[in-house]
């Protein structure tokens, strides 16, 4: 492997010139796919993710259906060209696990009991990966769910906090993830202050953990604003319903 890059300059700037608590620029577009019920495209720094949502729809095979709520199926997949070295297209262990983790981060936000015996399918395709794709996927998938008209408690926004050279930094990129000392992805429903995903690898002291969570919340609020703005941009164009003629 190549030599370790300078992760933190003496002035306290990161590899890509960001301050420790600065996010990468986020761009979200809603309704990019014609055939899906809901869709979203998200760019966060070098990450490019596209999400399609179908449903609620009839579930096949029928025996998987749940009598009291809708079933959520999630597929997280990285395209072979999304990373530097070609990735085999078959789903890896990591992708299967991430599919589950993302599903469990989104499920609490959906009113699943309103559509018993049906399925909601979420397809996440990572077109380009640059660290923090699970967070990017959750953020984009939540927007796509809202676009599909599925009833939600709140949007789910996600961001990773990490430790680089002993400092807590927000929104890790690929290099920081690789050479840093810790990575902690967090997903939340901001309105309720409810955490729906919290993972961590690396070592965090209890104080660091508390600080990291606070930092994550700050980042999540920023992501949340971007989500809402993207949805508003698409839907404010529709003329008002029931307008008096």
């Amino acid at each position, binding site marked *: 492997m190549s030599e370790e890059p300078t992760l933190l300059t003496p002035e306290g700037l990161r590899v890509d010139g960001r301050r420790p608590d600065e996010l990468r620029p986020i761009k979200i577009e809603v309704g990019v796919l014609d055939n899906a019920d809901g869709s979203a495209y998200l760019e966060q720094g070098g990450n490019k993710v596209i999400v399609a949502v179908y449903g609620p729809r009839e579930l096949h095979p029928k025996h998987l259906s749940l009598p009291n709520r809708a079933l959520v199926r999630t597929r997280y997949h990285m395209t072979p060209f999304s990373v530097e070295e070609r990735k085999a297209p078959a789903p890896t262990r990591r992708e299967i696990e991430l599919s589950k983790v993302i599903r469990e981060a989104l499920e609490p*936000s959906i009113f699943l009991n*309103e*559509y018993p015996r*049906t399925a909601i399918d979420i397809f996440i395709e990572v077109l380009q990966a640059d660290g923090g794709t699970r967070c990017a996927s959750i953020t984009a998938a939540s927007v796509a769910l809202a676009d599909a008209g599925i*009833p939600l408690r709140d949007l789910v926004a996600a961001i990773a906090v990490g430790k680089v050279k002993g400092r807590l930094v927000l929104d890790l990129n690929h290099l920081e993830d690789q050479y840093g000392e810790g990575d902690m992805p967090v997903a939340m429903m901001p309105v309720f202050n409810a955490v729906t995903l919290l993972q961590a690898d690396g070592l965090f002291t209890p104080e660091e953990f508390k600080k990291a969570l606070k930092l994550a919340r700050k980042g999540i609020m920023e992501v949340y604003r971007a989500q809402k703005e993207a949805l508003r941009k698409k839907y404010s164009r529709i003329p008002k*319903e029931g307008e008096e003629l």
Partner: protein
Amino acid sequence: MPGDVVVTGHYLPGHGSYKLDRKVYAKRIGLVEVTDVGGQKVVNVVPFKGAYLPKEGDVVVGKVLDIGIGHWLVDINSPYTAVLPVSEIFPRPVDISKVDLTEHLNIGDLVVARVIAFDLTRDPLLTLKESRLGKVVKGSLLELPLSQIRRLWMMRERITKLIEERYKCSLVVGENGRILVIGPETRQEVDAVKILKAIGEGRYSKRELRRLLGESR
């Protein structure tokens, strides 16, 4: 938008909204509508998009998917497939071993039916036992998003009048997002479909619509 606080205080959550700690939140992307139900203010969020959930009493336009023993399975443009039992077609009990069900309704046939039962634990039940209901033998089918159907519903009478006078077509607006246009000739049906689509998509301004509707009066 999901998670947005619509109002705080003495309001009840209706469709598309929920209440927590005196605050009413939106569940979906849509427009807010406040109705008065028995002195209580109910907040609804009328969605722009979403699946059709059958309601008892809805008139729907369905397509026969399959024929079972003593019933038909009908696609009603919803996450749930509807069931149309033989007993809801014939006025008196029939012996299904002697009747060929395909003669009455075959796979691919369109029906205008009414939902008589649906409660999330069982599939919706349809009936054809009403004068306006039955198999569709002619006409054109138009499928629109539910929000557009709502728009048409609100102006239903005026639109129906316009279509009838201008194009000599009659309309069946199914609650499930399907509209049936029945006219004397295909050409008029096609024209009527075009104009319905345009109205549904909101391509007309208020003024244009008024002119359009006024003309036919």
